[in-house]
């Protein structure tokens, strides 16, 4: 009998190892087959730098927009009992299960030049959203915001509301309580939601190419660049994939470290 900490049950260890292998193998293959030699040249190419810059900028804006409107939405869904709440909650989850391309088509039908709302705007101003960088942000926000809303709503629902009552008894109004009690206490979940949202926005492809189209420098994000490079230059596609992978990893690690340092319960 071994003293001290017991080993985890072997069945769990084996399954966990399989899962890890399954997730890591494609990434390892990417690293192994990457054309490391041509990487510096590729990174220097303006189209690659454009795509990367565009991806990061649009993902950051999309995440910011999602946070600014998504957190209030999560609060309303969690705290306010209004008629049709369960329907609203289901609709918010819809972009999660909708194939991204379908999302893109839906966006076109709503905000395109002939769209339900977009058509009115076009008739009025002569301007339409598709094929612009703003359209990329819209597409990314559409697919990524539900991640944030779901995470934050779940956290709010599980939150011990007695803390909010304590805040109220000390004279703090509802917004003050949200700002000074609830959100700080929910910071880890909030951060998780934001990171998830950002990652999803960064990797978005189907809705982007359908709604925003593909124009280098304006709407060609990294995922689009990778997909299109696959047509005639697979090596370039692999290299670009690697770049995206490294950038994504860097962002994730950066964010996680920041929030883990402020662990509230120790």
């Amino acid at each position, binding site marked *: 009998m071994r003293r001290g900490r017991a080993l985890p049950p072997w069945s769990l260890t084996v399954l966990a190892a399989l899962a890890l292998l399954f997730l890591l193998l494609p990434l390892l293959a990417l690293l192994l087959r990457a054309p490391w030699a041509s990487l510096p040249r590729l990174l220097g190419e303006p189209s690659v730098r454009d795509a990367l810059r565009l991806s990061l900028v649009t993902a950051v804006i999309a995440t910011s927009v999602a946070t600014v409107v998504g957190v209030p939405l999560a609060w309303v869904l969690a705290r306010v009992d209004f008629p049709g709440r369960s329907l609203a909650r289901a609709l918010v989850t819809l972009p999660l299960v909708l194939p991204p391309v379908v999302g893109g088509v839906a966006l076109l039908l709503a905000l395109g030049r002939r769209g339900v709302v977009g058509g009115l705007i076009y008739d009025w101003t002569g301007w339409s959203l598709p094929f612009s960088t703003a359209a990329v942000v819209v597409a990314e926000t559409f697919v990524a915001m539900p991640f944030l809303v779901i995470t934050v709503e779940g956290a709010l629902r599980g939150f011990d509301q007695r803390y909010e009552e*304590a805040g*109220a*008894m*000390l004279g703090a109004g*509802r917004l003050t309580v949200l700002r*000074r009690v609830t959100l700080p*206490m929910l910071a880890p979940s909030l951060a998780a939601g934001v990171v998830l949202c950002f990652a999803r926005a960064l990797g978005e492809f189907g809705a982007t190419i359908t709604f925003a189209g593909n124009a280098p420098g304006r709407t060609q994000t990294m995922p689009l660049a990778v997909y299109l490079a696959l047509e005639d230059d697979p090596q370039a596609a692999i290299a670009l994939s690697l770049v995206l992978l490294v950038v994504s990893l860097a962002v994730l690690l950066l964010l996680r470290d920041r929030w883990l340092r402020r662990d509230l319960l120790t």
Partner: protein
Amino acid sequence: MTGGALAAQLQVERGSLSLHVDLAASAGEVVVLLGPNGAGKSTALRALAGLTALTAGRIALGDQVLDDVEAGVFVPPERRPVGLVHQDPLLFPHLTVRDNVAFGVRARGADRAASRRVAAEWLERLRLDHLAAVRPAALSGGQAQQVALTRALAAGPQLLLLDEPLAALDASTRAVLRTELREHLTTYGGPSVLVTHDPLDALVLADRLVVVEAGRVVQAGPPGDVARRPHTDFVARLVGLNLYRGTRAPDGAVALDGGGVLRAAGTSSATGPVLVALRPGAVALHASHPEGSPRNVWRGTVTGIELVGDRVRVAIDGAPSVLADVTAAAVADLGLQPGLGVWISVKANDLEVYRSAPPPP
């Protein structure tokens, strides 16, 4: 912090709970709500705080009307000058002790520097200033509860509510904190309402005791009076008294509802339904019919024996049944065991006979 006396008529109907309680507390007075779990005491407190809606009734603090169902007045909790201390300290984990205490001050409009100054003063007053920079997670249960109280007081409430403030603490901490709490409640100028199911809290902290059972007030008065002359089995059990209901005859004998007759000392013209209270310590047990003075003597059968502290509590069936506290030596001498027949004697002087009057307003 000027405020008035509390005058509340609380009626809450919610599901299986039906609460109908009138409460009054003057400035500086500590009213303790005592009662079994589910009696509605916490609901009453939450109604005072504005966290639970009244079905009917009115809450006024001096000239301020906080709640008036008929007139359609409802002041939300955050605008009531009411402080609430919970069983759980509910300190904000992401703030230091000082910022926790400053929270209420800041919420009411002070800037950060001013609120921190006020917090520091309060922490010093309650001898907790050495904890100012500590995070709540590093505090002991007792310390956390003290900080919670300081936080509530620093916000300058005109009414202080405490919901089982000592219940989550271990026995020794509870004893220490009970004394501290008494001191703080004495210095606090406004009315306080404290809810508890612990009789010791009630007896130590209360200026006036209000017993609530099944959503209704069943007895109210100074704690000593309530303890000596309980109106309900709950309180009797709580303070450890034998309680009987009966009818007093003109000659002074009380015919008990459960069977048997008891005679108390003194004469009284009062006849009719009465309550009789008897301390277990005043009950004597004998192997054979006792000689001498006791006016109340009857026979019974031992049903249970239990060690309570350094005494032995003996439960005896008879007319009436009784709980008796005897020494271990007596148990040995009498050879007490379940099933044994014993003689019980009680002096007339040791019986409290009183009317179960309706509770005073």
